[in-house]
């Protein structure tokens, strides 16, 4: 019970942080893309980093946004009402949903961190750590990290949703 409550609080807290991160990233994306146009006509030579920064901010915005969408259950869903089914049938459905999401999320997380022969250095993040972004000259890992971060958040939300299903009264039906 205590663990479940902690998990639910953790998920909500992390979601708030992710939401602010996503909002910031969208703003950065819009400003650097807009600045690129202004710079071309006002200074005649746009800085080289605007395109890349805008694109990479979009990656962060999208991945964090995806985790928020998972948390608030706003992803496109053909049978959204199944979420409010309770009782033993509801429990089975909740477990099935969690298992399904985990089947997708876990391999992504695993291969983000580990590469061939369980090597951290050759996992996705390890590989991109060595690579430099084209124009900004910093490690690609600053951007590729968006993927394991978002999928970790989703995993936590997933567990919290499960915890909530089994410890709390039904939520109102999602719109």
């Amino acid at each position, binding site marked *: 019970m205590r663990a479940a409550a902690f998990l639910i609080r953790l998920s909500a807290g992390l979601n708030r942080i992710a939401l602010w991160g996503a909002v910031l990233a969208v703003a950065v994306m819009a400003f650097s893309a807009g600045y690129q146009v202004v710079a*071309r006509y006002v200074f005649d030579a746009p800085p*080289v980093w605007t*395109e890349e920064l805008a694109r990479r901010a979009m990656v962060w915005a999208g991945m964090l946004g995806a985790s928020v969408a998972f948390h608030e259950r706003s992803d496109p869903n053909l049978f959204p009402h199944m979420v409010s089914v309770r009782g033993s049938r509801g429990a089975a459905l909740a477990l099935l949903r969690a298992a399904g999401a985990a089947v997708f999320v876990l391999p992504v997380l695993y291969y983000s961190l580990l590469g*061939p022969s369980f090597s951290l250095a*050759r996992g*996705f993040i390890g*590989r991109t750590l*060595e*690579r430099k972004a084209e124009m900004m000259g910093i490690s690609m890992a600053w951007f590729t990290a968006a993927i394991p971060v978002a999928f970790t958040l989703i995993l936590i939300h997933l567990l919290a949703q499960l915890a909530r299903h089994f410890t709390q009264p039904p939520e109102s039906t999602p719109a």
Partner: protein
Amino acid sequence: QVKVALDSPPDLQGSGSYVWAHTFVEELKKAGIEAEEYQRGALGGDDELFDQVSQGLLEVSMSPLGIVGSLDNTIYGLRLPYFFQDMGEVDKALYEGGMLEKINEGTTSHGVRVLAVNTVGQGSGIFNTKKPVEKVADMQGLRMRALDESQIDLFEAWGASGTIVSWAEVPNALQTGVAEGYLNPPIVPLLFGHTDFIKFFTDAEITPSLRITIVSEDWYQGLSDEDRAKVDAAAEAANKANRDWLASQDSVYGKLKEAGVQISELGDDARAAFREASQPVYDSGLVTPEQLAAWKTAKGE
């Protein structure tokens, strides 16, 4: 089974990189090693292919030069303007001067080996939509599409300006004037159908036009000595086919003219002036002074 990811349409007349890949696959098959071509884009974009190679999930990929440069920038020596006379000099630096080995020192620890460097056409020249360029001063005021920061430096050194546009947006950018030109080998506007709006070509031969063949180091080292010799032999045959193909490419100028592109040749003085004006790129940090020295030694300077 060896998977070879293509980066161009399977066109033995138009695409030098396909000539390489196809010869390589056929030679492997002849030697009894199963190999298969995968169409451009089927297994993912350049970054994805590079990543799959580095993990040993894909054996061979035809890739852009810059992608290896993101691991180790030794290879950028091949992008220095007016550094190589011709493909012969490139081959000399790579194979006799040991630069291919030097490049691989920086990449094999990441699971990626550069197996070969391929030509995809004559040296790249200046394409634009505005005016004939016959001397450096004609570059004044042109806004060129740039690939990266070193190209912007180059354009600025010529008195033009550069703007970064991703390849997917290049047709739009050229049609609408967001960019007014680009550097490319003569075949590119023909291959990509840009001749509707590209009107002028200057045969400035700035850099050789190259793509590279990368292979998975895990796969390469895991081969038996006998198989590795077969792979090396296939690569050598592919190199030869690729260099022979280049010799057959002079018709491309006629095709450009047919497509309505006006071609300007540079006289010796004009060429020397371009070479002179390109010097700042050598100090722009594209390669370190040590790497530059290594390249110079390797090509026999």
